[in-house]
């Protein structure tokens, strides 16, 4: 049966893929644990991968906070609970929207960039050149990108949280005449600080996902420029799907349905 063959092959491929990622991550952790880290390259990557995502994170989170507030504020005021809007916006943003939005945006921008860069290094034999010089591509290329994303994505998430809440506050003021004081007071009382930290923890995990999928897909590139294109799209699609799946699992574990 062709269908079963394909499903079977798909399952085998999925396991091989997961195995490959795990192996690459283990290799990277070994260098990190041994503190064999290229600090300069890590800082460069943090700048490239993180700082350059700032404007796009600001824009997407601003408008998301605004639309969320728009949808909820008018109705909340109608039902006489306008004083809860700030809480609703802050709560959802810090726990879910901020980490997810920044991760998806960075996956599209940075995950793609990592896969494309490493992929073209494969097809131009630069990866083999590293290996032939006795240098590990994991240490030279993957570890700096991994660390850069694990550091920068939570920072970008803080930014996304703040901008999104400000956007929500402006819209709540303009459309539902909810004062900034009551918005902030509501946000403060509804959002435990622990939840902010848990949101940031999730985004660190998303950083690992984006860096590892981008690196792995890039390093697995075969077959010229077309292969690089495939690796790049593959990296973005796979990491976004994984971010959604991990987000659900982590929310379930961290917040336990509360």
């Amino acid at each position, binding site marked *: 049966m062709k269908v079963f063959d394909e499903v079977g092959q798909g399952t085998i491929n999925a396991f091989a893929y997961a195995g490959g990622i795990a192996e690459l991550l283990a290799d990277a952790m070994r260098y990190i644990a041994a503190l064999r880290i290229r600090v300069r390259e890590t800082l460069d990557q943090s700048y490239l991968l993180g700082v350059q995502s700032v404007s796009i994170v600001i824009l997407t989170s601003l408008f998301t906070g605004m639309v969320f507030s728009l949808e909820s504020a008018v109705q909340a005021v109608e039902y006489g609970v306008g004083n809860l809007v700030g809480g609703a916006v802050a709560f959802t943003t810090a726990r879910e929207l901020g980490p997810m939005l920044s991760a998806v945006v960075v996956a599209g921008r940075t995950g793609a960039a990592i896969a494309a860069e490493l992929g073209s290094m494969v097809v*131009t034999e630069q990866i*083999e*050149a590293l*290996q*032939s010089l*006795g240098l*590990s591509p994991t240490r030279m290329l993957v570890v700096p990108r991994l660390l850069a994303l694990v550091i920068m994505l939570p920072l970008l998430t803080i930014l996304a949280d703040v901008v999104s809440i400000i956007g929500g506050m402006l819209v709540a003021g303009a459309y539902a005449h909810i004062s900034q004081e009551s918005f902030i007071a509501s946000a403060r009382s509804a959002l435990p600080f622990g939840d902010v930290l848990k949101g940031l923890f999730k985004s660190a995990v998303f950083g690992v996902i984006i860096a590892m999928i981008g690196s792995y897909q890039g390093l697995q590139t075969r077959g010229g420029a077309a292969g690089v294109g495939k690796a790049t799209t593959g990296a973005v699609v796979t990491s976004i799907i994984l971010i959604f799946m991990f987000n659900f699992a982590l929310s379930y574990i961290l917040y336990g349905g509360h």
Partner: protein
Amino acid sequence: MALWAQLDDVCVRYGPKIVMQNLTLDVVEGAITCIIGLSGAGKSTILRLLNGLKKPDTGRVFVRGNDITDMRERDLIDLRRTIGFAFQFSALFDSLTIGENVALPLREHTKMPDAEIRKLVSETLESVGLAHVEDRYPSELSGGMVKRAGFARAVVTNPQAVLYDEPTTGLDPIITHVLTDTIVKLRRRLNGTAVVVSHDLESIFQMADYIAMLFEGAIVAYGTVDEIKRSPNPIVQQFLQGSEVGPIPI
């Protein structure tokens, strides 16, 4: 005669395509072994087998008596520090300048002070006829210049063995002569081993201690320059004469 490396009964396939079949080759230590053969015969693949960049499907690869066939990547990485590799298409890091490319193995593997690294890098570049290009990027140089920079990167650490993949292809006759000379000098200075893949018969005859001819997945002839020149094998003779008539299908 001590051996630097040995390919023992090696088979290599890419998908359905069989590239090497039961190939056996001895690489003599302290000598220059040249590998000749048609385009696509698998010459680059032989070099990749010798430093573990490619694993054979069956058969064994030995380097200095150690079986590297199943060696883990992290051990291979250490082994490769002792083997220079000049790639066919240079494979320079395009995010680094020429100077940084050549300096990279020194920066990563030695504690040499920066000033000394700079000096050694510019000396090595000069020895391949490249002066004052340290600050340029690979994309700003001609194909032949990039090729020579790749050559410099492969030899800058004075490795015990160097694998050269078509070091002179596409270069002008003067630079070809300079590089051929450099390969010989380098081998002498370190009493090291060199494996050179080339189509350039003139420079092969100049530098080779041994020549191996690769044809249809196996070594069909092996010997000194004179032995190869006088080889009765019609495949070898057709190749050396560049003739269209003979056993080699076109």
